[in-house]
């Protein structure tokens, strides 16, 4: 669609303190475009959790964000280890994050469940040893 706004962000896997910068930038952009605040919050949280996952598990990657009048589509792509058991990873409380990540406030096993909760559509393509693509769509009520 020609009226989409396309944004691209590289997510560094080396600096945990910078994780969330892309989500923050998208949130700001959506605010300036006048999108519904509840939708913006859902988009920001879903993307933020996914960005954190990329940093924790996959050494970073990139995000492509397409902003349409009625929805926002996000692709988060990494070259990490892949998710061996997606069904398990979707369970609340299940986490494979190392202890040092828990001490940073994440790894409670809520990341993917939260992402699913806040997005209208979520699709995971994952291959062990190759990486993961996470596709999210959040619809926006005007």
């Amino acid at each position: 669609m020609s009226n989409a706004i396309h944004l691209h962000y590289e997510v560094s896997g080396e600096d945990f303190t910078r994780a969330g910068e892309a989500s923050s930038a998208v949130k700001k952009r959506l605010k300036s475009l006048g999108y519904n605040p509840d939708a913006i919050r859902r988009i920001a949280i879903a993307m933020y959790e996914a960005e954190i996952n990329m940093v924790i598990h996959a050494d970073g990657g990139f995000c492509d964000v397409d902003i349409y009048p009625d929805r926002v589509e996000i692709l988060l792509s990494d070259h990490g280890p892949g998710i061996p058991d997606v069904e398990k990873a979707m369970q609340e409380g299940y986490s494979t994050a190392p202890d040092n990540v828990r001490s940073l406030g994440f790894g409670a096993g809520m990341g993917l469940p939260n992402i699913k909760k806040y997005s209208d559509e979520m699709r995971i393509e994952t291959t062990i040893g190759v990486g993961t693509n996470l596709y999210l769509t959040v619809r926006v009520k005007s």
Partner: protein
Amino acid sequence: MIVKDIIDILEGEIICEGDLNQEIKTACGSDMMSDVLAFVKDQSVLLTGLVNPQVVRTAEMMDMACIVFVRGKMPDDSIIRLAEQRGITLMKTRFRMFTACGRLYANGLSGGTKV
């Protein structure tokens, strides 16, 4: 309740000042940011013992107005700068998590969820 009231109730010390007159409807106390992100109500205050930039980012994503660091914990400059840029009030209280939450609850602030 407004942000200013929280300072009084928790005998708090302001580290970075946002809008002190912003209305506070509910609060959330946790060191796990994903648990905070799991309940997207109008949770306008975050009480936490965790001190890192992701605390501010979590508050930002949730549209929270104020972060309270319990047990007198002091965030570093990078965290303070991040909060300043986003207009989020940071404060610290000498009270521990349980006591700080209890004081706010006793003064009429709820968790905003049924359970």
